[in-house]
């Protein structure tokens, strides 16, 4: 029972961490390429890996931004490591798209924000 609670708590933290990270990515990249294009790229990235990590399909993308509200409700019982792996894949997919479009220009802006957060998520998952 205690373990279950801890896992729930840990999942919430991981989701929160990635929600913040995606919000930061959105703010940075939308300033460079605009919300409409970024929204399409997010959708493409989710389509690319949504088959492997189905929970990512509940990410809500619009021109206003990205919302994890639905996902937070759906994924509370998921293993934190699985959530972490899914988001890692999503960020890799996005990074691959950004690189295909603009070589290093976008990635140079977001990597300093992404790397510390992903490392933090890794630490959280491994502590468990």
């Amino acid at each position, binding site marked *: 029972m205690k373990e279950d609670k801890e896992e729930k708590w840990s999942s919430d933290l991981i989701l929160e961490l990635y929600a913040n990270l995606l919000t930061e990515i959105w703010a940075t990249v939308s300033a*460079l390429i605009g919300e*409409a294009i970024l929204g*399409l790229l997010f959708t493409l990235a989710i389509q690319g890996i949504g088959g492997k990590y189905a929970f990512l399909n509940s990410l809500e993308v619009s021109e206003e931004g990205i919302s994890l509200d639905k996902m937070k409700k759906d994924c509370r019982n998921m293993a934190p490591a699985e959530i972490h792996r899914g988001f890692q894949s999503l960020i890799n997919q996005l990074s691959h*798209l950004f690189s295909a479009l603009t070589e290093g*220009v976008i990635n140079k802006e977001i990597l300093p924000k992404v790397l510390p957060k992903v490392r933090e998520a890794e630490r959280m998952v491994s502590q468990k």
Partner: protein
Amino acid sequence: MRLIFKDLNILRSIINAIGTSIGSDVKGIVESAGTTLPNLFDFSVFGVLWKEELILYLFQEESCPPSFTQEVVKNMIRVFSIMGEKQMERERVALQVEKRKLKPNQMMMDPQATLKSYLTLPLAIEGEIIGCISVNSDQPNAFDAQHLQFFSVIGYQMAATLKHFQRLRSVKKEAIYDSLTGLMNRRYLEERLSVETEKAFPSGSKLSIIMVDIDHFKKVNDTFGHAAGDKVLREIASLLKSSVRTQDDMVARYGGEEFVLVLPGVSLEAASTIAERIRRSVENTPIDIGETQIHSTISLGISSFPIHRIKYKEELVKMADLALYDAKRGGRNRVCVFTGL
């Protein structure tokens, strides 16, 4: 700060150039952007790939070697394919290249130059990717975050202008063509007939009209349904279109199951030969409707200037119509020439 203000002004002028070039063709829209873009940043090739027409417009430095151009084409198609649902084939994309002097002489491109840096963005509007836009350079790290910001604004304007252009063209098309058969519509026929009679009347040059009506068409609709009727209309329209000269002649749907052929420079005798050839062609071409075949026939009426003396274009159509009436009355599936009121 002053530099940014200057760049913003240039950006405004590019946006303005793209937005106001809507009256021209797509090539003109790309050119207007390409001409002003070098004021904002250095590049070797500026490209716009438009999905609807599968066409890639390149606006490039005149010293750009062909191998560099090919590299850009390949890269743009590769990037676009990553964003699209399926792989785009290079062979299917038509290329339009415009060469301009973008760099001063001392900066002529090396004949061995290769693609060193690029920015490519989707042309996205209303949630749809309609193409992509790209700047390419033979210099490494030629573009930074500020270039990307400016280029994305250009991309949005380009997407909006192309979409607008697409809609405008579709409206124009609807105003000219009959949506079912793809032939010219009656409104356009009237316009075209005015032009042709204005040309023919003063000089006395030949102008013939053939009016066509599908025999017993109502029976086709009643027996096989309207979808079958539509197919018959489309098939016969296609036969008519393939029976005339593509450049000079015109085939229009006059209404219902009636068609009109306008044949400038064609004598009455030649028009009769054409009409008879069309009649036989329709008679000998069965139309597949599901598992059955329909054998349609047509009746045709001809009028021809200057043999038939007229003052107004409407008279020419009326004469062809009267001749058509004779063909119907004479038993259908035949050609009749107007013989007098």
